[in-house]
């Protein structure tokens, strides 16, 4: 635990000393809950259509695959015409693209970013490294199987997958969403303990709350 997260005694302006426990005082520690869709199916379908047509990707590159996302914004591929946009903050993003191998160090950040997104939210794994570690299958500091750590809705294979493959993948994701099958967030909430245990197994300097609201 980093020192700034340890309990500490502080003295208030009135001279009274009291304890500050950062993990409790500074972070919300409520666990995630399963969120149900709209009660009326047609409404939920409508929302799902909108979700599919408005995919906001978190601009966060984890590995070499990040370089394949840039061309999507260029005139050649122009992902915007499919309702795909990039957002700089996880609060406003729905789609987390794990672009390539994920070192344990980056995993921590990826988890934090993922948990700070609002549900429904989707994860797309890019390239073979996210599926089975790829060429880094025996590396000491990359994870091999992304879906042990966060619920992945879709993998796009390749090393690296070309932008066209990404576009195709996103189209597939849209279909999943429209079909109401992209419920990764709920899956994460349901199997929260399992995911956490997996995550903590590889992240040794766990210096954050269990769920990053």
């Amino acid at each position, binding site marked *: 635990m980093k020192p700034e997260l340890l309990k500490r005694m502080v003295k208030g302006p009135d001279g009274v000393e009291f304890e500050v426990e950062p993990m409790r005082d500074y972070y919300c520690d409520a666990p995630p809950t399963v969120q*149900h869709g709209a009660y009326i199916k047609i409404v939920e379908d409508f929302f799902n259509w*909108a979700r599919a047509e408005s995919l*906001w990707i978190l601009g966060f590159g984890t590995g070499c695959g990040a370089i394949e996302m840039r061309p999507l914004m260029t005139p050649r591929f122009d992902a915007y015409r499919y309702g795909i946009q990039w*957002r700089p903050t996880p609060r406003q993003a*729905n789609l987390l693209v794990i672009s390539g191998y994920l070192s344990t160090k980056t995993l921590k950040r990826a988890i934090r970013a993922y948990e700070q997104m609002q549900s429904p939210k989707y994860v797309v794994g890019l390239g073979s490294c996210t599926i089975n570690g790829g060429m880094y299958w025996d590396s000491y500091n990359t994870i091999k199987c992304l879906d042990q750590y966060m619920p992945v809705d879709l993998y796009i294979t390749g090393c690296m997958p070309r932008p066209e493959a990404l576009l195709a993948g996103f189209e597939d994701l849209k279909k999943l969403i429209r079909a109401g099958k992209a419920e990764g967030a709920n899956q994460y909430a349901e199997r929260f303990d399992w995911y956490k245990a997996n995550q903590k197994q590889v992240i040794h300097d766990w210096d954050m709350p269990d769920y990053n609201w």
Partner: protein
Amino acid sequence: MDFEWIKIPYALLTLFIVVNFGMLLGAFIQKIGARVGRRHGIPIWQNYADLIKNFGLRTSITHGVMFYLGPVFRLTGGIGLLLFVPTIYGSEMFSNLSFSGDLILALYFVFFGTLGMALGAGESGHPHAAIGISRGLSQVSMAELPFALAVFAVALQYQTLSVTDIVAAQQGGIANWTLFTNPVAVAAAMLGFLGSMMRPPFDVVIAPQEIPIGPPTEYHSSYLALMQTNRAIFPIAKIVIYMNLFFGGAASWPVFFLKVFLIYMVSVIVGVVFPRFRVEQSIRWFLVWAVPLGVLSIVLV
């Protein structure tokens, strides 16, 4: 000029038209921007999808009361601004709620949403939000100045503070527009306009990667939806003021759509051509180029 109940449905009608126009206009403008970069750009209905999606998100968080109220202030500011100014000249129906105040009311009500939004973003506790606000307020404090001077010049020119009267004075041909009767004031105001539209070169306030979009960095879901709605209304409400003061107002909806679009295009064209200013650069730019014009316009009236 007094209140009647019928004004409420009329005002709601204006609101409805403007919201939709704003959504489509926003997307259209983005498409134009995309075409400049030789892309297709977003579909024309993209804003609707985004809005619905954001309303339809299942979770949200809140940092506190002001965080919650921030977007409410913002949208109230946008709607209020729109409704305090008559939209269509000569139409009792679309004079909205302008009986409650004149031009000065509109000018100051602009800040209602800004202030509320700044407070909400402030409560999120995110330093980037605060940095963005710091930049935004700094820039706006100078960008508003040429506009305010121009407005004063125009009010002096027509000897009234009533928007309706100012529009009335510009009727009877294009030569009567303030644009031609008082070009200096209009030039000053339009330079100020560039600064208040949050488009390049004056968009360092919402620098997307440096301070992830600044003030709204913590906003999401339905909060963001409210702000998107406001984003459709507010620029138009603002442009309506410019249109009424400087460009002869609009006597019908088609003219309205056209004029608003063209005025909007001014900032778009400038925006796609020029790179970004730093805050102090833009303040100096306004001080050196726009403010003297505003002063000149006051002196010349």
